[in-house]
């Protein structure tokens, strides 16, 4: 039994020291992890290498180094593996001059699976696209296109379903519906990978998360473990005030912050506990009679959090 949270006991997808570079740009660097039945969230900021990793898993992109195996085979060498794998790419890989019904049927025909009207209608119904199924895709919104691509994947009944930012462009109702669908597929024993750059989105879809940034593994495990890792990060905050030195000294003395750098009209502090800082600063300012004009987290983006995690590894 594996103890490394980047790996699962019964993998259907194994990524082993995989790297991919495009000229000078390294998209994925020495990444190892595995995926198994159930839903796994692939989390990372835009440009982190999520799409490249998913394309390597799907066999669309070669690895520059390392290996990827899907259901025991190299997807670049064994085309038959595609009979059990479906990818929903982020980009608009749909034919504008087809209807959703025609597109889904075409997907089933190419996969040599059931393309009867019942099968096609069932897949469209699963994603809530029946009403618009006979309209040309060219007139669809982003969300409708996403759902059409998901239907085209579902109609092939894949054992492995790879979804690259599938919730992009969907409204909250559609999003909730798709999330339920992904969870249902995961619970039925299929391997489902859902990529996103939004932690809350991934949190709703899956319990297990692989987080990458700059093409490297940043964190892996449950969402709670990722959150715990994130809470351990020192945050930089700039506080605008008319008495920066006094405010900084008092916060440091009370142990609210780890470090202080006073400026002319602000003070930069670092803390591991943003919640306490947010509660204490107004109280201390009030005691000092200092005026607070602003409170600006300097590096609270998901990207900076992940970057920190990578550097710490």
């Amino acid at each position, binding site marked *: 039994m594996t103890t490394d949270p980047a790996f699962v006991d019964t993998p259907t997808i194994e990524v082993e020291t995989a790297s991919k570079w495009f000229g000078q740009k390294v998209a994925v660097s020495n990444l190892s992890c595995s995926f198994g039945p159930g839903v796994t969230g692939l989390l990372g900021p835009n440009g982190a290498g999520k799409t490249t990793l998913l394309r390597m898993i*799907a066999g*669309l*992109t070669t690895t520059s180094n390392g290996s990827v195996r899907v259901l025991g085979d190299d997807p670049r060498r064994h085309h038959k593996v595609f009979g059990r*794998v479906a*990818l929903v790419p982020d980009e608009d*890989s749909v034919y504008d001059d087809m209807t959703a019904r025609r597109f889904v049927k*075409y*997907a089933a025909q190419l996969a*040599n699976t059931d393309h009867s009207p019942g099968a096609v209608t069932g897949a469209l119904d699963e994603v809530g696209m029946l009403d618009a199924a006979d309209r040309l895709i060219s007139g669809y919104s982003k969300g409708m296109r996403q759902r059409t691509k998901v239907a085209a994947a579902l109609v092939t009944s894949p054992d492995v379903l790879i979804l690259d930012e599938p919730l992009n462009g969907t409204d909250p109702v559609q999003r909730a519906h798709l999330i339920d669908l992904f969870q249902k597929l995961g619970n039925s024993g299929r391997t489902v990978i859902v990529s996103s750059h939004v932690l809350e989105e991934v949190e709703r879809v899956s319990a297990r998360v692989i987080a990458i940034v700059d093409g490297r593994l940043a964190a892996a495990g449950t969402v709670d473990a990722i959150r715990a890792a994130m809470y351990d990060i020192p945050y930089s905050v700039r506080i605008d005030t008319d008495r920066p030195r006094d405010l900084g000294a008092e916060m440091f003395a009370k142990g609210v912050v780890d470090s202080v750098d006073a400026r002319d009209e602000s003070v930069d502090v670092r803390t591991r506990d943003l919640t306490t800082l947010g509660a204490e600063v107004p109280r201390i300012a009030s005691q000092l009679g200092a005026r607070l004009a602003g409170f600006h987290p300097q590096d609270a983006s998901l990207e900076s959090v992940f970057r920190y995690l990578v550097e710490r590894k």
Partner: protein
Amino acid sequence: MKPALALFVASLRQALPRRRTLLLGLLELAPAGIYLVSTTSRTLEFAIQGAVEVGGTIFFSLVLPVVAIVVASGMLGSERRDMTLSFIALRPIPRSAIAGAKILAAIFAAFAINAIGAVALATSHLVRFGDGQLFVGLLVGAFVATAAYAAIFVPLGFLTDRAVIIGMAYLLVFENGVAYALPGLTSLSPWRLGVSTFGALTPDAAIHTIDFIGNLEMSASQSSLTALIFVAAGVAATAILLRTRDLA
């Protein structure tokens, strides 16, 4: 329906969008129009010579290649540009079957348009002189040349967005320029395969086709076999490209 057949049918449909097909179809009528104007005072014997001249200088060496290059270059090229290539590539279909379906679709789509030119030219001759001997030669010749072009330009269209420009340069500079000056290179000119086939299947026209094909004189079966070799090489090259290149 088998996956490769479904891919062929869908690709054929995509290769014949209404507006482009209409424009190229109109272009195909040009050789027939020129033939009608240029043969107003000719006898049947000279009319066949005229048909070969128009067929050689306008239909086979200009209109047919332009149509074949445009259609074939877009067969995988447009899938790559529209990012739909992954949709096809992620199906359990052998790469050679994808390549074969795409090249066959390019051949039939381009031939559907080129047949308009061949039929229009042969019909013009039939209407004016009551002689129907041009139909078979022009149609089979057009098919052979179209197949050879498609086999070259489907993989090239996958490789580069500039396949049409490269094709035009090849056609105008090499095939219609250098190959005339250096007859030894005529075997590298797909449209000459078509003219050779036309000459082989149209006895009265054969003597006049020599001016165009140089030393590429072949029987219809030889030129068809050569076109088949082009197609086989094109399928192999396309399959290798699909296997080895990133399909992003």
